[in-house]
């Protein structure tokens, strides 16, 4: 664990996440018969938001909310092996860091809930309620998929799982396809793109928990969001797609993964809250169960 490496990891995650966001806007625009913004538009937006003056005072928790999200994103990033055996991107890892990761990844939304609760904006409150109930929806198949892996390979460390794939050469997405599909379907909900963008649904809640956050708050949320997107993508790549030995492969794999929620989101309206939970407790949960059974008996 050297500081320089950690900073490099963070900057890489920030840059990749932001660029993916910009590319997403571009792709969406092309589907909508538009030219679309440049792919670096998100960087401009982020810098503009940072340079805005912020005069919103809602109390301490409101200030801490975005910080919580940032902390959770960065900490979970620190536990992800970005590349396989590379001294430049070190990671804090110990036996059972996967379990710790499951916890720390839901830490951000909880912080968001604390922050949004204090703004006193009813839209924020409703949005947080929706977000937490949706999280209940997609966390269950997600955790089941991970448990299936842990049971199947008798290890709870990400690097352990990664090494098994690297040495055997078999990706887990083929070894245990049910776990993979459960994880992918659950990750649709994690990305919060349509049809699962019920938390900040603009036409319903006026951007939900973010309604009272402008300027620097929004900058922190935006950047932590992009870091978190990188975390999710890299985690799935590490767990199911055999990691990446260099940056090119990493980018290719993560971008392909990223296209799944994006393309699904372009053409689908928004679910209602209970409908989205029903969705996650349908096929994803089923796949999760099959995955565990498969892991136990085969």
């Amino acid at each position, binding site marked *: 664990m050297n500081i320089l490496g950690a900073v490099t990891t963070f900057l890489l995650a920030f840059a990749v996440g932001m660029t993916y966001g910009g590319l997403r806007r571009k792709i969406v625009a092309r589907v*909508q*018969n538009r030219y679309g913004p440049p792919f670096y538009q998100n960087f401009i937006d982020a810098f503009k938001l940072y340079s805005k003056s912020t005069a919103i005072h809602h109390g301490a928790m409101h200030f801490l909310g975005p910080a919580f999200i940032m902390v959770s994103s960065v900490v979970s990033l620190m536990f992800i092996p970005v590349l396989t055996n590379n001294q430049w991107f070190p990671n804090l890892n110990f036996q059972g860091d996967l379990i710790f990761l499951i916890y720390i990844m839901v830490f951000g939304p909880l912080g968001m809930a604390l922050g949004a609760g204090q703004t006193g904006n009813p839209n924020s409150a*409703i949005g947080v309620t929706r977000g937490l109930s949706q999280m209940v929806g997609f966390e269950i198949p997600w955790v089941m998929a991970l448990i299936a892996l842990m049971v199947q390979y008798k290890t709870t460390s990400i690097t352990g799982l990664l090494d098994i794939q690297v040495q055997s050469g078999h990706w887990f997405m083929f070894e245990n396809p049910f776990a993979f599909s459960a994880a992918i379907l659950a990750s649709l909900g994690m990305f919060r793109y349509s*049809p699962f963008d019920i938390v900040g649904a603009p*036409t319903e*809640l*006026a951007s939900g928990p973010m309604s009272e956050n402008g300027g620097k708050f929004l900058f922190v949320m935006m950047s932590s969001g992009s870091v978190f997107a990188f975390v999710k993508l890299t985690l799935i790549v590490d767990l199911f797609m055999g990691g990446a030995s260099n940056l090119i492969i990493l980018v290719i794999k993560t971008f392909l993964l990223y296209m799944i929620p994006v393309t699904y989101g372009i053409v689908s*309206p928004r*679910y209602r809250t209970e409908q989205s939970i029903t969705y996650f407790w349908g096929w994803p949960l089923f796949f999760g169960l099959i995955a565990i059974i498969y892991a136990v008996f085969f």
Partner: protein
Amino acid sequence: MKREKATTLYIGPQHPGITGNMMVRLKVEGDTIVGARTEVGYLHRAFEKLVERRNWVQSFTMMCRFCVPEPDPVEESYARAVEMLDNIEIPERAKWIRVLVLELARISSLLLWHAGQGHSLGLYTMGQWSVGDRNYILDLFEDLTGARIYHMFIWPGGVRRDFPKGFEDKVLKTMDYLEKRLEDYDNLLFENSIFQKRTQGVGYVNPEKVIEHGVVGPVLRGSGIKSDIRIDDPYEVYDKLKFEVPTQTGSDIWARALVRRVEIRQSIRIIRQVIEKIPKGDVYTKVPNPQKWKIARGDAFARTESVRGEVGMYVASDGGAKPRRVHFRGAAYVHAVTLLEEVLIGQNIADVSAIMNSLGTCPPEIER
């Protein structure tokens, strides 16, 4: 002590989901609405006061501003009311051109509805597509009238001018293009399982009480009652044209969506017929000099079928050069106030915007 369970949630006036500039005050318990109240008046420009200071032709420039998304039916109503008052007989070709303009306006407004319905449910691609295609209709309007939105074209005594050269072919080309695009809309919107899940059984209007509530247009047809001013008391040349009036019995957002889906195709059909059998001739009759135009005492009430339903214009004259009273009846005047307040009870917060769109809410025509 007992805690108040219901919280107050203000939708609008500044809200991405609101249609136009109005406000709905909701009493919410959890995600369910237990009370709703419409608050309008943010767009009140006092047209009906201003026309008292303008003569018959000047006040006609106000008419198209009554409802922004679809100005032409209002112009049509005013023009016909004034013609009834002054017994002006307009030439045949003018009537056909009026029908063409009205149907084009209906198509453009229905495309806006596609956008609104998709946008209110989070399907932003629908809005981008249909509003983009709406520009082609507005191009036709620009060719014909010279303006995109407010084309003061249908005026007492006929229409302002005849077709420009090659206009008919442009219209037909646009219609062909539009019909191709409508298939894409079907694939994106109507065959979308999530859209069906979100709309079926939502925004239910009680079919027993619709007529007593003064419900008109697609909402009425969506609850199984076949009623259309173009059929019931035909104006201009609608009795010479062949078209169907679709009805559905679901009486929810999905049923209204299906009704509008058929309506836009019927409008294309009507436009094709108009282009086919429009007669040659004059497009306006001579009306007196606007400065000296006096109309004998009396009153008239003209109705037109707009996208949101029947709109009516009451014009009363006191024998002077200025109207004594011009009073506009918009469909949203009923839909967005008494009906909306009733329909919203028991619905989910997520559906407010969709319900408002499917009821055809148009704030400017409520306050005028």
